């Protein structure tokens, strides 16, 4: 029963995240969806993935979203969608109808009472070791993509001119600091 309530709340949060006009509010609704799904997975018995979903989905992604929205600011959503409104409603409705037909014909039953064959760690590190390596590569690709996308800040004219000035300035401040430190050392050592 509590799982059904959690799924309903997650669905309401998802609808509100799409309907919300403000980006920050939409990001918070999305965090609510992640939290509800994490609780549902915990109630299902998938404890490890529930913790990962709660920390990554509701934590990290929400922080990234709030950070990005703070950088770009609120932008008003244009009222006219790219595709016609009826098509935007009809296609998801068709997906739902097809999925409902598949579920009714499949006769899926839960095997939650049966003991799980292997734990998550055994599957992850023994059966799917190559996939773990691919996931690491994916994370590094994401980091590199992020750095490549946001690297244009270093090429701003003001920033580059500062570097040029610092490099062409002779005698540099470092030499002055070094000279001053030698003088200070002589002053300290002179009383002896």
């Amino acid at each position, binding site marked *: 029963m509590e799982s059904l309530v959690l799924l309903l709340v*997650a*669905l309401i949060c*998802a*609808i509100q*995240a*799409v309907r919300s006009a403000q*980006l920050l509010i*939409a990001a918070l609704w*999305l965090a609510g*969806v*992640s939290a509800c*799904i994490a609780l*549902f*997975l915990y109630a*299902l*018995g*998938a404890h490890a*993935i529930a913790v*990962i*979903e709660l920390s*990554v*989905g509701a934590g990290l*992604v929400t922080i*990234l979203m709030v950070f*990005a*929205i703070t950088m*770009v600011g609120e*932008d008003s959503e244009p009222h*006219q*969608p*790219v595709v016609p409104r009826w*098509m*935007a409603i009809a*296609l*998801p*409705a068709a*997906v739902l109808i097809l999925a*409902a037909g598949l*579920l009714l014909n499949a006769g899926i*039953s*839960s*095997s939650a009472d049966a003991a799980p*064959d*292997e*734990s*998550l760690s*055994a*599957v*992850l590190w023994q059966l*799917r070791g190559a*996939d773990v390596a691919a*996931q690491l590569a*994916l*994370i590094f*690709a*994401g980091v590199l*993509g*992020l750095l490549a*996308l946001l690297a*244009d800040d270093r090429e701003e004219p003001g920033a580059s001119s500062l570097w040029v000035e610092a490099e062409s300035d002779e005698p540099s401040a470092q030499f002055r600091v070094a000279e001053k430190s030698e003088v200070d050392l002589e002053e300290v050592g002179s009383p002896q």
Partner: protein
Amino acid sequence: MIWGLVAAFALLAVGLYGLLALRNLIKLTIALQLMMKGGLIAVVLAGDAVGQRGLGESLGVTLIIADTVAAVIGLALAVLVRRRLGSLDIEVVSKLRG
């Protein structure tokens, strides 16, 4: 079990509606996240249904990682488009000519 799959497909449908109807780049990222979360529920429940919960959970971990990387790249693209073009509207981006 069956309600979990119904909710998973409903999340998929809500995300698909968002992808089709919205024009803000960050809202599109949020809609993509919703679809991924529907997929996460479906994968874990499918592993539970066939008696291989560990395999379903490991696929779910893969999905969470791919979901997070997609969100990071999408948000970085949104920030870059906003800086370069001054708008988050995908119509502005689609008018670019290389």
